[in-house]
C-alpha cells in the first residue's frame, strides 16, 4: 500500500470562466488545492458547482482562464495543444460515466488504443493489454465488442483502457452513474485497489455518497469555490 507523498496536483488561484458572446460566466473562482501522489479524492457538490470543470482542467482537456495548475510536474498553462495531448497520453487515464468505448473495436482493441501512440511494438502492446485484461478479469471477453458486454464489463474495459498506459492520475466522471448497485460496487472496489495496490492518484466526480466514501478525501465545491475538504474514515 502506497502512502500519499508530495503534491502531484498543485492548484493555486485557479479560475475558469465561460463566455457566452460578451457575457462572462465564472465557473471556478480562485481555487487552491493540493493533491498528493497516491491520493484518492472525490469531487462533490451540487450541479453547476464546477466539479466536472475542475476535473477537466486537471485532466488537461480544458484550459483555465487564470491561476496556476501544475499536474505531474507540468504547468499545464505552458503546454501547447500537441504537448498537452502527449502529456495526457503519458499521465492521465480517463473513465467516463457512459464508458465511451469505440463500438467498432473489440475489448482488446479498445484497451490497446492509448498504446498506439507509444513506441511499443505489437508484441509489447499485446503483453500490456493482456496484463490489464487479467487485472479487470476480462481475459475471456477480449474478443467481445462493446455491444456484447454488460454495463459493468464495459466499465471494466474502460478502466483497463485508462490504466494500460500506466498513467499517474486516473480521472473519473460519475464512473458508477450508469451502473446498478452490484456493478457499481465492483467498479468502486477496483478503483480502491488501483489506488491502494498500484498507487494511482484518483479523482472522481460523483453525486453518490457511497462512491464518495470510497475516496480518502472529499472535496466539496459550492458555486465554483472550494467549500471544504473532508478526510474520510474508512
Amino acid at each position, binding site marked *: 500500500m502506497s502512502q500519499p507523498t508530495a503534491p502531484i496536483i498543485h492548484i493555486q488561484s485557479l479560475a475558469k470562466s465561460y463566455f457566452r458572446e460578451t457575457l462572462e460566466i465564472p465557473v471556478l473562482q480562485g481555487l487552491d488545492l493540493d493533491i498528493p501522489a497516491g491520493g484518492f479524492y472525490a469531487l462533490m457538490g451540487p450541479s453547476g458547482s464546477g466539479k466536472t470543470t475542475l476535473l*477537466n482542467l486537471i*485532466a488537461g*482537456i*480544458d484550459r483555465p482562464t487564470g491561476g496556476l495548475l501544475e499536474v505531474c510536474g507540468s504547468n499545464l498553462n505552458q503546454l501547447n*495543444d*500537441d504537448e498537452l*495531448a*502527449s*502529456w*495526457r*497520453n*503519458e499521465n*492521465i487515464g*480517463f473513465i*467516463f460515466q*457512459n464508458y*465511451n468505448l*469505440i*463500438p*467498432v*473495436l473489440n475489448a482488446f*482493441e479498445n484497451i490497446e*488504443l*492509448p498504446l*498506439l*501512440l507509444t513506441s511499443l511494438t*505489437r508484441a509489447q502492446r499485446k503483453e500490456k493489454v493482456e496484463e490489464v485484461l487479467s487485472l479487470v478479469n476480462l481475459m475471456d471477453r477480449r474478443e467481445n465488442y462493446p455491444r456484447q458486454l454488460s454495463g459493468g464489463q464495459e466499465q471494466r474495459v474502460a478502466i483497463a*483502457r485508462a490504466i494500460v498506459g500506466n498513467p499517474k492520475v486516473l480521472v473519473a466522471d460519475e464512473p458508477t452513474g450508469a451502473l446498478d448497485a452490484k456493478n457499481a460496487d465492483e467498479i468502486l472496489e477496483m478503483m480502491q485497489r488501483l489506488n491502494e495496490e498500484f498507487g494511482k492518484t484518483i479523482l472522481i466526480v460523483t453525486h453518490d455518497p457511497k462512491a464518495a466514501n470510497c475516496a480518502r478525501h472529499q472535496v466539496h465545491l459550492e458555486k465554483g469555490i472550494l467549500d471544504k475538504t473532508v478526510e474520510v474514515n474508512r
Partner: protein
Amino acid sequence: MKFLHLVWKSLMRSKRRTFLILCTLILSVFLITILQSLLATLDAVSNKPTEGNRFVVRHKSGLTQFLPISYGEYLRQQPEVLAVANSQWFGGYYQDPKNFFANFANDETTMFQVFSDRISGLTEAEIKEYQRDRKGCIVGQILADKYGWKVGDTIPLTGTIFPMSPQLTIRGIFKGRMASEENTLYFHYKLLEEGVQFMKGKTGAFWIKTKTSDDIPRVANRIDTHFANSPVETMSEAENAFYLTFVKMLGNIGAIIHGVTIAVLIAITIVTVGTMSMAIKERTTEIAVLRAMGFSRARVLFLLMAEGLLLVTLGGALGIGLASLVAKILREILGSALIFLQDFRLANETILLCMGMALIIGFISTIIPALAATRRSIVEGLRAL
C-alpha cells in the same frame, strides 16, 4: 501502419453505408473513365498520326457515292502529287458474320507509297508476290494472330455490300502503328472491279500523297474546282478531317461527354460530402475520447482523412478496374463493327485523371467535416451524446 486497422474498422462502421457509397463511387468512376476513354479514342481517330502529306478525295454527296476511276488520271497529273491510290471499303466477313473486320479493295501498287506509314514489315518479295497475284491479299498482324492465319492460307471473304465472295490468298502479314491498322485486310482493286459489274470504272475514294503537307490545300482546292459543276463533284479533305466525318456522324460527342462527366462529378461530390459529414458527425464523442486519450488534433485529422481517401481509392480503383474490363469486352465484341473501338482502351492519362478526380473528391468531402470535428473542443465533444 499500426493505425490502418483503426482506419479500416472505422470505415466499416456502417457496412451498408460504406457499401452504398462505394458502389456510387465505383459507378461514377467507371462512367467517367469509360466516357473519357471513348473521347480520347475518338480524338485519337480524328487526330491520327499521319505522314502529314496525305489527303482523300471523295464524292461531294457522301461516303456512299462513287467517283469515276478516270478521275485518277487528272489527280496524277498534278505536279505536287507523288502517288494516288483508289480505295473502296468492301465490308466483307470471314466465314461467319461475327468475324467482321476492316477490309478494303486498294490499288495494289500505289497503296504502298500512299500508306507507307500504316503498312510496314513486309519484305520486297512479299510485296511483289502480292502485286503479282490478282487474288492475293495482305493482312495485319493482329488479324492474322486472331484467326491463326499464315502466309499462303486461303481466306474466303463474303461481301455484305457487294455481291461478291472472293477466295483470297495471304501473301504477306504487315505491321501497323495502331490496333485498328493491324486489324485490316487489303486486296486488289481490280478483283473488285472484275467481280462487281457496277463497280467497274468506279471507286469510293482516292488517297493522294503530295510532296509536302503545304501542297495539300492548294492541290485539294484545285481538284475540287476542276470537278465543280460536273455530274460527279468531289470533296477533298485532309485525312484527319475524313476520319472526323465518321465521328461527327455521332453528333457533338465531346460536349455530351464533358457535360455528363461534370454532372457525375457534381453529383458524386455532393453524395460523398453528405456521407462523410454524417459519418464524422456521428462520431463527435468518439473523436473527443480519442483526443482525451492523447491523440492530437493532427493525428485525428490524419485518421479521418485516411478513412475518406481509402474509401475513394477503393472506389476509384474498382471503378477503373471495371472500366478496363468493359473496355476489353467492347473492343472484342464491337471492335469489328465499329473500327475505332479496336483501339478503345484506357489510356494512362485517363486513368490518372479519373484517379486524381476521385482523390480530390475524397479530399474535399473529408477535409471539411474532419476539420470541423477536430476543431471542436474535447469538453464540447464529450458532452455531445
